[in-house]
């Protein structure tokens, strides 16, 4: 699946390229697609510049976070480097009332949901298990147990059905859900159970699989014999394969899938073929399992570069890029100072919200701990 040719024409993505939906080539040229080009007709130049800005700022934030980890300010960071088009393209297709369930790498989606990205740092600094109120952004917390949130997404979609917010035709009312997950997650039982529940209930949920070619060190061939969008079809779910580094195509297919969902057509499975350009997380060492040459091929398919070529070709001037650079620099600086200022939480936080109700066991242990800590302080002082 990995091509090592680093010269000449950029090799096509994936094995079965006939199936791959693409509206913008790695070279930055538009491709006409009968079904999907009409879906991006509303994207004027300002909108394209908006998508570009999204990707650039998210990448900058992501790069800063990676470097904060290197400087010991974060315990861990899972970069989304290279996956910006998949995340921004799909995320921007969501309506305000839609709901997204991310995995743990969906920084770009968080951005499209209006989450202050700095809140994402708290979890990786070891200060919070979450960091934002899901209901405020219709963006669930990150879920680290692979695959399990696909069921939560499906259940949430079953709730939307019971609320009657499907197929009313009212664009402000009809709602849908997107579940984000990776190629590795397709092997989990939970992911497959989610496909079953969604299919038999016609639930309004889009299964958005970012096939970034790797599950830590394992290539996608260890998870499946065939392209992953086949999986959805096996459950009777309409399924498409899209160039995940093409922000326009990702926007188009997600828009279609969400429309189907909101109008009562049930689930869709999207396989966005992309590439994890960075390490799995800052703890990972990709040199153990892949070559620089492989990475180089994908660097040439960079999702941001190709949109820049298009924008320049379609008339966006240098001022735009210069201004955006400045904005990114500012964001970067702000992130660093914000991160360093995150305070260590009080120890009592351990005992909070274990239950939503009073719980005798928790109270007893909290009291013991308080006394113990105070006694300890007293002792220290006494010394």
């Amino acid at each position: 699946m990995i091509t090592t040719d680093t010269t000449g024409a950029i090799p096509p993505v994936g094995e079965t390229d006939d199936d791959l939906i693409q509206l913008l080539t790695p070279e930055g040229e538009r491709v006409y697609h009968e079904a999907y080009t009409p879906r991006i007709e509303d994207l004027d130049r300002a909108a394209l510049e908006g998508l570009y800005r999204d990707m650039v700022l998210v990448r900058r934030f992501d790069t800063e976070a990676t470097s904060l980890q290197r400087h010991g300010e974060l315990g861990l960071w899972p970069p989304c480097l290279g996956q910006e088009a998949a995340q921004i393209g799909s995320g921007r297709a969501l309506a305000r009332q839609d709901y997204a369930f991310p995995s743990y790498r969906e920084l770009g989606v968080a951005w499209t949901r209006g989450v202050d990205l700095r809140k994402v740092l708290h979890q990786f600094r070891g200060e919070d298990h979450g960091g934002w109120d899901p209901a405020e952004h219709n963006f669930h917390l990150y879920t680290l147990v692979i695959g399990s949130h696909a069921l939560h997404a499906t259940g949430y979609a079953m709730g939307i059905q019971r609320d009657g917010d499907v197929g009313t035709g009212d664009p402000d009312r009809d709602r849908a859900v997107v579940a984000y997950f990776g190629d590795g997650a397709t092997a989990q039982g939970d992911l497959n159970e989610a496909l079953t529940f969604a299919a038999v209930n016609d639930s309004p949920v889009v299964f958005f699989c970012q096939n970034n070619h790797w599950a830590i060190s394992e290539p996608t061939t260890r998870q499946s014999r065939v392209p992953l969008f086949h999986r959805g079809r096996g459950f009777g779910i309409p399924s498409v394969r899209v160039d995940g580094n093409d922000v326009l195509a990702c926007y188009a297919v997600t828009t279609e899938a969400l429309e189907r969902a909101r109008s009562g057509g049930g689930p869709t499975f999207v396989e966005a073929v992309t590439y994890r350009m960075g390490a799995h997380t800052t703890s990972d060492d990709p040199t153990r399992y892949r070559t620089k040459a492989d990475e180089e091929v994908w660097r040439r398919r960079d999702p941001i570069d190709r949109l820049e070529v298009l924008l320049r070709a379609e008339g966006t001037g240098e001022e735009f890029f210069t201004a955006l650079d400045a904005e990114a620099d500012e964001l970067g600086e702000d992130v660093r100072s914000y991160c360093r200022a995150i305070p260590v939480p009080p120890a009592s936080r351990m005992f909070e919200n274990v239950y939503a109700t009073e719980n005798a066991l928790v109270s007893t242990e909290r009291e013991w701990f308080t006394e113990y800590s105070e006694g300890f302080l007293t002792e220290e002082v006494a010394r």
Partner: protein
Amino acid sequence: MSTSTTPAPDTQRLAMAKAINLGLRRAMERDPKVLLMGEDIGALGGVFRVTDGLQKDFGGDRVVDTPLAESGIVGTAIGLAVAGYRPVCEIQFDGFIFPAYDQITTQLAKLHYRSRGAVQVPVVIRVPYGGGIGAVEHHSESPEALFAHTAGLRVVSPANPADAFTMIQQAIACPDPVLFLEPKARYWDKADVEVSAADQVAGGQAGLNTARVVRQGSDVTVAAYGPSVATALRAATAAEAEGHSLEVLDLRTISPIDFGTIADSVHRTGRLVVVHEAPVFFGAGAEIAARISQECFYHLEAPVARVGGFHAPYPVSKLEHEYLPDLDRVLHAVDDVLAH
């Protein structure tokens, strides 16, 4: 949605299965967000008929026959709860809860905590549990200890129809996830249930937090829950004939455990026997014995005795009555602690 006028007491004689059925019905009438999910709970009414008639009256969207996948049931219930619903899941038998173990312990139990209170997941998981019905493998297990160790979950078990009726409504009203263990061998036991009290009792949470003294006595405390309460009560009657006065506690909750009620009783009797069907090794009796041995160190006149299943898989049904703690095993332990 609850009315403020108190209706005249209305008492019905109900089997436990029917009492739970009625409790579910009341909860569904009271709150349109309550819905039931599980395998075969619709037209069939569940393999124990606990949901009998509910799909007919509330429709397939509120009494949902799910695909055959326990992780899927609990996982989608979590999503429904995030969306504002109060799902009540039925796991068909105790032995089939384990495919859902990850969703229950890593997701359901932790979401309120990890969201720092932003997300509540009021999911109830109903499980017919315990042995004694002559079933094949995986249909007679008592998994409570495997869940009580995990913070964020409440684990409860009613022992009689009246508590079953009340506690199922309290569990559904509770904003915490609750594992609701139904002693299947007691499903057909009948008792008077004050069904008019529904609205009041459902508001409270007593059944989810406190144990109850179901028989007073002075020589030995016998603490039990679920199916073993009946055994303990029978033992108390038998012991009386031999001149021993047993105090029987129905714990009702396994997480949290009402240690206060147990300690009070032990302060009076000085002796404690804990009874459950689950294996003794790492069972609930261990936690109770450890805590009471500590709290009542100077009151205990004998070591706490534990009566329960053996460290072996649940046996074939022809042997289950040798495996399960019965009247004689309880009395044997009572004799032991009295002999000290």
